[in-house]
């Protein structure tokens, strides 16, 4: 063994000396260059390895869509809303005669909220079930994993609600129908500064959630830029139920509002405990708040707080009201933003299927990219050149059992 | 019986195992008080006493399972207070257990090989960091040899097998070579324990009730065997035993414990007639009913 070591070192040294920058394959598209580097090359970057998209779907008279989202685990509630929204949209599309005479079906797989499961589910959807398109997931980590696989296989993917900018940066087959974290953080910073005239705001973030950390980063930066002051940044972990320690620490700094960019499952309880500790300032949050459960969990404590969202179910627009009542009829509850976005994502997918000449990946990709002013329930969807939806955000004020529209912030 | 008591090998040389005023306490209980012992090569000593007298505790202190509260244990001239059992074992002290503690799921041969191997493994002397690191390095290199099946390693393994087989043969267990230890009959399990202890190439062997559960015939065989072991392996042997006949029959010197205290020490005849011993052993009534030494 001993005499191997110097040899090994020498070899390593030679390797290091011989290292060089990887020569870029003959393409400017950095996303596909990686595949070429993987040795799966031979295919031109513009047409990713034609794994399956051109092969016919399982049955000739149906079009199969893949859905991968968290149905169990800590993110299950979001995943289930997403599933419901997609289901509803597909049902409506089928009732309206399907696409080009074909019925749409979905195949839904559970990602358990874990990236490796998400990647596995997507790989299965693409290669075994031969879906033409993929919808999902909520958590950005999972969507990132899925995006990588979908991009490599050349199957278009639409994420309804992953707001991390990195997701669509994975490649030109990845789209989203929601705005991104930086925008949402900006919305709340602007609202706090201009509408609430707050100078001092504390932040309570969910350290387990990339979404929450992302919003915190943007919010603190923007809010400080606008002349405000962040008095404290405290953290909790998804699944916690006792936030008194953090809130007590925040209370000391006497903020005028607390930014809590987490999920409703925790925010409701946070609000109650804040009031219990004598913190009466409003809480501010993001779309993670949006759920009927928020009012139940937060009770009267959450009333008077504000959050940014994709849509307001109170919007009198008949399209939105129809969606809300249909959803209620099917699943017994007011649809949250995740359901609305999933509904929109599925609708965009259906629209693309209608417009595309065939169901091959590139054709669908091109069709999705054309989406402009698509009338979704969560705002009109226009996809920009980075495949992100550009749309306004609404700020809602939490009331008794529902949230009231306050203002719209446009990008 | 008298011829049996004549040691064929005269105890010689410096003491291999010494206990010097060893005491141990558990909570408030004094399990062993001021225990003295000295075993040289060729010795065959006995340790007796009623149940709960502290015999096994004495074994445990000597072999490093318990750390003495006071006093000193020396093995091969080295003070071993606070050493770990395996370190003490490497100095040449091996034992068997009262309640048989074989590696039950291992074959008879493997049981012995474990002991042989442990003894063969290189021991880096010293306690300073450098020695420890060197020891660790050596150990990992040893594992590499196992992974790579180097010729040297294979030869070593073969050597171990032969060695273990020899020991099994000595103990009359060779026909049980590939039997799992738990499947052996009781008497053979006892003998396998001795074979295993011998695998560590001890200088001193401590036997904890080797005859427990054996019939008369087996006991007689065992007596012969123990003496043979002492001579063939030039050991010093210390036996804990309940069977007076056996102890009296083979031991040249006997230490008697009661309630952790040494109440007598000497040649079998001497101990046999010791009043305190009889009292402790058989209760006060015994003397009255039997009228004197048995």
């Amino acid at each position, binding site marked *: 063994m001993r005499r191997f070591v110097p040899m090994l070192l020498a070899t390593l040294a030679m390797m290091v000396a011989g290292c060089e920058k990887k020569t870029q394959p003959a393409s400017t598209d950095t996303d596909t260059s990686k595949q070429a580097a993987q040795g799966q090359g031979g295919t031109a970057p513009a047409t990713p390895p034609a794994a399956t998209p051109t092969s016919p779907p399982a049955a000739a008279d149906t079009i199969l869509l893949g859905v991968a989202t968290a149905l169990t685990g800590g993110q299950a509630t979001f995943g289930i809303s997403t599933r419901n929204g997609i289901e509803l949209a597909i049902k409506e599309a089928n009732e309206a005669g399907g696409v080009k005479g074909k019925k749409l079906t979905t195949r839904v797989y559970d990602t358990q909220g874990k990236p490796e499961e998400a990647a596995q589910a997507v790989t299965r959807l693409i290669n075994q079930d031969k879906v033409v398109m993929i919808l999902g997931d909520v958590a950005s980590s999972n969507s990132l994993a899925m995006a990588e696989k979908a991009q490599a296989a050349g199957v278009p993917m639409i994420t309804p609600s992953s707001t991390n900018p990195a997701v669509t940066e994975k490649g030109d087959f990845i789209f989203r129908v929601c705005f991104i974290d930086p925008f949402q953080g900006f919305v709340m910073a602007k609202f706090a500064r201009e509408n609430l005239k707050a100078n001092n705001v504390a932040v309570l973030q969910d*350290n387990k959630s990339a979404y929450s950390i992302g919003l915190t980063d943007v919010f603190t930066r923007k809010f400080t830029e606008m002349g405000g002051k962040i008095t404290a940044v405290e953290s909790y972990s998804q699944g916690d139920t006792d936030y008194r320690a*953090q809130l007590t620490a925040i209370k000391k700094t006497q903020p005028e509002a607390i930014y809590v960019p987490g999920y409703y499952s925790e925010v409701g309880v946070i609000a109650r405990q804040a009031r219990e500790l004598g913190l009466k300032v409003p809480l501010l949050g993001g779309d993670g708040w949006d*759920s009927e459960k928020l009012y139940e969990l937060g009770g009267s404590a959450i009333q008077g707080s504000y959050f940014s969202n994709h849509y307001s179910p109170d919007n009198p627009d008949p399209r939105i009201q129809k969606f809300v009542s249909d959803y209620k009829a099917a699943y017994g509850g007011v649809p949250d933003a995740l359901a609305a976005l999933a509904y929109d994502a599925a609708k965009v997918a259906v629209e693309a299927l209608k417009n595309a000449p065939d169901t091959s990946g590139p054709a669908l990709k091109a069709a999705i990219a054309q989406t402009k002013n698509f009338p979704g329930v969560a705002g009109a969807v226009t996809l920009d050149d980075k495949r992100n939806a550009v749309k306004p955000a609404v700020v809602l004020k939490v009331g008794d059992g529902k949230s009231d529209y306050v203002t719209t912030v446009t990008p | 019986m008298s011829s049996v008591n004549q040691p064929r090998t005269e105890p010689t040389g410096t003491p291999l195992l010494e206990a010097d005023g060893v005491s141990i306490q558990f909570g408030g209980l004094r399990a062993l008080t001021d225990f003295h012992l000295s075993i040289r090569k060729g010795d065959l000593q006995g340790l007796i006493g009623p149940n709960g007298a502290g015999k096994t505790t004495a074994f445990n202190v000597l072999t490093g399972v318990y750390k003495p509260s006071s006093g000193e244990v020396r093995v091969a001239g080295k003070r071993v207070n606070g050493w770990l059992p395996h370190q003490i074992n490497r100095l040449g002290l091996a034992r068997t257990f009262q309640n048989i503690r074989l590696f039950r799921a291992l074959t008879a041969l493997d049981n012995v090989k474990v002991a042989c191997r442990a003894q063969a493994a290189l021991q880096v002397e010293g306690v300073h960091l450098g020695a420890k690191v060197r020891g660790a390095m050596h150990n990992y290199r040893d594992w590499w040899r196992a992974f790579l099946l180097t010729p040297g390693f294979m030869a070593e393994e073969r050597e171990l097998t032969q060695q273990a087989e020899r020991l099994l043969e000595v103990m009359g267990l060779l026909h049980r070579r590939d039997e799992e230890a738990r499947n052996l009959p009781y008497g053979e399990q006892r003998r396998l324990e001795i074979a295993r202890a011998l695998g560590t190439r001890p200088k001193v062997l401590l036997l904890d009730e080797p005859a427990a559960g054996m019939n008369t015939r087996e006991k007689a065989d065992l007596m012969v065997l123990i003496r043979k072991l002492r001579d063939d392996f030039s050991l010093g042997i210390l036996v804990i035993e309940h069977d007076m006949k056996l102890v009296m029959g083979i031991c040249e010197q006997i230490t008697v414990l009661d309630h952790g205290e040494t109440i007598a020490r000497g040649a079998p005849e001497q101990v046999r007639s010791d009043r305190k011993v009889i009292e402790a052993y058989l209760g006060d009534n015994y003397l009255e009913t039997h009228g004197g030494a048995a």
Partner: protein
Amino acid sequence: MAQLLQHLINGLASGTIYALVALGYTMVYGVLKLINFAHGDVMMVGVYMGYATAFALGRQAQKSFLGVVVIFLVAMAGCALLGFLIERFAYRPLREKPRLTALITAIGISFALSYGFQLDIGFLPGAAPRAFPEVITPREWLVIGDRDVVVWNWQVMSLLIAVGLMVGLQWLVFKTRFGRAMRAVSYDHRVAALMGIPTDRVIAVTFMIGSALAAGAGLLYAIKDTSVSPLMGLYVGLKAFVAAVIGGIGHVPGAVVGALLLGLVEEFVVGYAASTWRDAVAFGILIVVLLVKPGGLFGRVAAEKV
């Protein structure tokens, strides 16, 4: 100063809950030497039972004193039954098998309960957390300054209940016939059986008491943090378990002390250091305690008989 006091109160309040859950771990470990990983999930089931009962009682009745008693009784009885069933059908057949198998079984039950309750099929509640009804109307028990420090009635109640239960358990274990049987079983259940102690019954009853305790603890926890979710058992269970080990698992007052200590340490780490490191500190303490005192603060590692 006020802040310090408030932290102290918060820490005690969460420590109290840990203590109640930890008592269950400790009892079961005491008699069976089994880390009952499903304990936290039994607690979760108990909370859902209480939740369902509260709903059945309706808004008015659930707030009455009798209503609260009924909620607690139903949940505790239901959990005792659940505990009995788990012990009877999952643990008892494995008692003579290596302890590892029982541990795996416990983990299996934990998975089945915590994931099963996430389903939205039939009576199962689904994954979303729910607000636990305010069965005990929160009242300020003590207010210092301009609400600088607030102590609530339920915080005091929890503490009293926890201390009461601890004293009761201690009495049960050391002063009653049953307790003597428990200790005998704990020492060696085979020998205990030979001595005519009905070990099966003792173990079953211990399990039922432990599970009922878990339900009570869970309800107090749900009242304190106003929500119930299928995963709550996992989080609280793990922490309570850590607390039990810090105190010396199998040791009743040790579990309480360990739990209060853990509650306070977590509170102060969050309050004065970095909140993100709370869990790391909790486990760090655990490891340090075990390294310094391998049996926990109060426990003793039984010297192995050689």
